[in-house]
């Protein structure tokens, strides 16, 4: 076992960091909830970063490293595609939107005209969305651009993929994105509370805050490693464990993050919500904690 990055992974992440650097801080006054960047999306496409999972030597493990890193940016990007596209055998030129057959009424992130909608039930099918099949939800609170699916296409592409295999990749994507979001949120809260002075000293010097932030670090760190393990092994149990840990850690950390920021935690002028309200979207995916805990139990003990 060796958990260090390979030379290829190090080189790819270095290149990615160079590409992402200009986007690390973004003006937020008019951004609202769903900050996106067409320029970032284009640069990622041109660099082929979201398609590394199609390379057998790099695989989903390296794709997950990229996704985790990009999720830390303020801009939302359709990163799930990088984990799911290799399974479908398609490229990531259009966002991939995942939807469960029994939850088609739910808002779906990046659902827009030309997106590939993947429907997961007893089978795995997909279609390219048209304008009449979707409704944008510009007032949504999820910090992603989301839409509602109004109708499924009559003719859909049938994928020769077991639904549980698709769900395993979905859980890996969920956990990987949550790991990056938690890390970015934690870093921003630590920075603010280390500078903000109350009662004559930095807020983060109070033990009540230090301990809870440290617990959030433990959760963020462990989630990173669980997600990376699942992405490298593609094992259904590993994926379910990572997804459950992502959602439970979201429950533990998100409201604390806003609480520690005080009134700044209510402001759209600070980027915290861009990470935490995306975590809220992921919190309900794949049935939430209960369903993912049941998936853990099923995969470990039957």
């Amino acid at each position, binding site marked *: *076992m060796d958990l260090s990055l390979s030379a290829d992974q190090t080189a790819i992440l270095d290149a990615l960091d160079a590409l992402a650097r200009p986007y690390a801080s973004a003006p937020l006054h008019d951004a609202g909830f769903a900050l996106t960047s067409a320029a970032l999306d284009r640069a990622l496409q041109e660099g082929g970063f979201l398609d590394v999972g199609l390379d057998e030597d790099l695989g989903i493990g390296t794709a997950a490293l990229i996704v985790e890193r990009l999720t830390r940016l303020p801009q939302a990007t359709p990163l799930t595609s990088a984990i799911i596209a290799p399974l479908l055998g398609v490229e990531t030129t259009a966002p991939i939107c995942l939807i469960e057959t029994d939850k088609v009424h739910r808002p779906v992130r990046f659902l827009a005209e030309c997106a590939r909608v993947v429907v997961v039930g007893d089978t795995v099918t997909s279609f390219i969305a048209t304008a009449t099949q979707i409704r944008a939800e510009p007032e949504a609170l999820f910090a992603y651009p989301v839409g509602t699916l109004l109708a499924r296409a009559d003719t859909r592409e049938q994928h020769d993929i077991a639904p549980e295999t698709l769900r395993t990749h979905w859980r890996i994507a969920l956990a990987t994105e949550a790991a990056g979001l938690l890390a970015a949120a934690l870093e921003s809260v630590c920075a603010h509370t280390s500078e903000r002075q109350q009662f004559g000293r930095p807020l983060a010097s109070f033990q009540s805050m230090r301990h809870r932030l440290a617990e959030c670090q433990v959760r963020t760190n462990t989630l990173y490693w669980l997600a990376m393990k699942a992405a490298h*092994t593609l094992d259904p149990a590993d994926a379910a464990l990572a997804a459950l*840990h992502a959602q439970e850690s979201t429950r533990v950390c998100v409201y604390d993050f806003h609480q520690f920021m005080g009134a700044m935690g209510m402001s759209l002028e600070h980027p915290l919500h861009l990470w935490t309200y995306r975590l809220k979207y992921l919190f309900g995916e794949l049935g939430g904690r209960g369903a993912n805990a049941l998936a853990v139990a099923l995969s470990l003990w039957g």
Partner: protein
Amino acid sequence: MDFRWTQEEAAFRARISDFLAESLPADWERFAQHGPASPALTKYAEEFCGRLAEQDLLTPHWPVELGGLGLDPWHQTILAEEMWIAGEPRGGQYMNINWIGPTLIRYGTEAQKSRYLPPIAEGRALWCQGFSEPGSGSDLASLRTRAVLEGDTYRVSGQKIWTSYAGLADTCFLLCRTSEDRKRGISILLVPMDSAGITVRQIPSLIGQGDIHEVFFDDVAVPVSARLGDEGQAWEIIGFSLTNERLGIPRYALARAALDRAVAVLQAQGEWAGEAVKIEAGHAAALCEAARVASYAIVSARARGETVGAQASSARYATVMAERRVCEFITEYLPEALADAHSYLKMHHQRGIVAGIAAGAAEIQLNIIASDVLHLPREPR
């Protein structure tokens, strides 16, 4: 990143597992309810560790010239996991192997290595650590046990408490004050427990008979040659020691094994059908595996020769979370385990209470994470 065990690592684990299956007595799980420091388990551990040593499985991660095989930290981890899953038949000797030995290898004089390492490597030694005092627990640097140098002999007076294994240990790894400087005034002495002036009193404990003690030092004479490192170097040395200690006990492995066992019992009893029990078990498993993989990240860094710092505290705290959740799961869904219906689960539960207390309380780990991982401003003193 490669999360797979190599063939050689898998074979090493299988070898240990086979050895345990062949060596442990049929009634081992009931026997293991004796605390790890109990007279019964200490006596058994001496036989067991001797056999481990004969198989080169007691100190395989030690350097070849000091009785080991020079194997990397992954092998140390595999060995520790299998031993803890089995209920730690090495008893208190696990401590020698995890951190006393490595600390002596790094900081000991040649005479100290010659005297102390062979008995450890042969499974004949039992140490205790004289750290905590009545007024100095988590605030270890406030310790007051004093060593005054007279000629070439220290005269040691003071009291230690919560000292594991002290009742049967042959040597104490003693922290004592040699000057008034809070941290640089602390030194380490290696003190034979049969020295005149040492009195040991056992304290009844939740873990089992013989686990914790008070140790009184009344003008105990200790030659200066028994000092480990320089005078005042203790804080640096125990920093090294505790990093090994915090990673040396893979409680997540025992917690996960206990969880698996509990689920198997529930399935056999027809109590595994509902969703609530499965959801709780899923949460407990997630915390066990979270702690495992965070610990592996530390082991991987050590295997690459990197210095492991405060991230070890993060992995350690994750293990505390896992241990508690598994204890809660078993208490809630299989309470008869605590009433002796399942020896293995009772053994796990007895030992689980230690996870957040020993080797630096969980709150101390959180302080370390806050200061040295998150770089948050420290509390004013």
